[in-house]
């Protein structure tokens, strides 16, 4: 079990419990512009334990991002519920940070301004927010870059800024929507290792969407496979690779990694094939 490596926490209400995500029977329907009802996700049930790193993998368009939007409270479910720390999500959930595939940095703010935005929005005094942001820039290895604008940074550096901005408020939940999808392979591996280090320090619960099965297995405690549209949970795999995992590049060669990766791919392959057939059918 993945829980073996986690710090034991006392029984009863612990601060950690606030980071538990329970998704029960979650369904989201949209009205298409033509007026048809489109079911993005149907009856999704899954639990993320406090401090767990959970990856969601599934074919394109299966409603992974829709699931995250319901957890953040940016959208409201059509049926079912999401609870965070035992409370039903209704409106924006506190203590959540989002990271998207696009940088979602403010191009008009400096690196420092971008990292500071979290505390500033919470009403932290400017001096204090600056000190905090400088500390986070140091943690992600960007000291000395605080006065640059995002367009002056490389893709990897922009991701580090986004990571610092997402973690500075010490969120209980981190929602990541293919955060490293647009990076080249080497930068991606470096960012994954850095993400794991920061996550080990803060231990937020993570919901991590990806198309990359290797990434999912290397980073997560739990991998959830979703079916083709309308998306629902197909299988859940617990990843028992020991933590801390260290260098993500190394772990890919371990026997247990390959074994788990093989099992999960078996489950995913049917869905990917089916999704491909669906889109090919539409195109024909």
């Amino acid at each position, binding site marked *: 079990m993945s829980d073996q490596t986690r710090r034991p926490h006392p029984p009863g209400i612990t601060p950690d419990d606030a980071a538990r995500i329970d998704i029960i029977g979650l369904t989201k329907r949209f009205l298409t512009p033509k007026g048809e009802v489109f079911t993005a996700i149907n009856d999704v049930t899954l639990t993320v334990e406090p401090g767990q790193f959970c990856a969601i993998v599934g074919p394109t368009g299966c409603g992974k991002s829709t699931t995250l939007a319901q957890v953040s409270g940016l959208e409201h479910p059509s049926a079912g519920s999401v609870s965070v720390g035992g409370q039903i999500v209704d409106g*924006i959930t506190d203590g959540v940070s989002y990271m*998207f595939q696009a940088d*979602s940095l*403010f191009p*008009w703010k400096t690196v420092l301004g971008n990292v500071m*935005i979290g505390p500033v*929005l919470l009403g932290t005094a400017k001096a204090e927010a600056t000190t905090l942001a400088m500390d986070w820039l140091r943690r992600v290895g960007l000291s000395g870059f605080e006065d640059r604008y995002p367009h*002056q940074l490389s893709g990897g550096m922009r991701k580090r800024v986004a990571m610092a901005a997402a973690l500075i*408020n010490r969120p209980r939940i981190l*929602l990541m929507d293919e955060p490293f999808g647009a990076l080249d392979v080497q930068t991606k591996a470096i960012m994954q290792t850095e993400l794991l280090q920061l996550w080990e320090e803060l231990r937020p619960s993570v919901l991590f969407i990806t198309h990359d099965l290797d990434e999912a297995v290397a980073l997560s405690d739990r991998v959830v496979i979703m079916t083709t549209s309308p998306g629902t949970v197909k299988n859940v795999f617990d990843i028992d690779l020991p933590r801390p995992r260290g260098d993500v590049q190394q772990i890919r060669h371990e026997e247990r990694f390959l074994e788990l990766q093989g099992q999960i791919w078996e489950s995913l392959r049917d869905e990917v094939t089916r999704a491909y057939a669906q889109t090919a059918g539409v195109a024909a």
Partner: protein
Amino acid sequence: MTSTTVATPAARLGETDLQSSARRAHSRRTAWVWVGRVAVAVIVVGGWQWFTTAGWVDKFFYGQPSGIWDSLVHLFTVGTAFGTIWENLGVTVEEAFFGFLLGTVAGVIIGILFGSNKYLATVFGPYIKVLNSIPRIVLGSIFIVAFGLGVFPKVLLAAVLVFFVVFFNAFQGVREVDQNLVANVRVLGASTLQVARHVTIPSAMTWIIASLHTAFGFAIIGALVAEVLGAQHGIGLIISQAQGSFDPNTVFACMVITAVVTLGAEYLITLLEKAVLKWRPPNRSEAQAI
């Protein structure tokens, strides 16, 4: 460590040669651009002077560059029937400036408001379209009837012309905001005002500033037209008097004066643009000018 640009080692053979030849090519290009610009001015102004002197074009109707120069000298030394040229220019610039200010502020506020509120945009949308399609310059007559020959109706006409330019840009700017950024700050707990302050307004600023270049030209047009329609001072009044006395040279002289003012304002707006939008990556033409 502190540099983000990729520096190739300067050891490569012939690199200095390459740099100096590129620099030479660049200065040659700049020189030819200036030669071309001067040639255009000489051909247009010289041709005009030549054609009117030779009598192929009647200078009584179309003026003459040397006559325009004489008018300019006369305007600045002798003055006009309505006081010195500086007084009149001051009145026109004041009207244009306050009209510009009023129109810009109203355009930005209403543009951002409509851009971020779908209900308001839908309700007022058709009316805005109607107002935009009527010839607003005619409103000048109404303002002069309603508010007299003073400065205020001119300010108002300039403001009306400026408003629509700025409004449409501010509106579009708000619509083009990156929704990921909005989602990001909302998840971090931003209130509606904070979303406007940190995301919507800075993002729309690119569009708004771009519209200001056109907007100042419209402010000058508004002020001049309102003065032509009825005034006691101003460049527009001088123009309408010159028209009445068949003096095209003075009309052209007034055009030159207004053009200089507009260019000056344009320069100030460019400075403002550089200061406000300093975060933007340098555009391609600047990057090419190595």
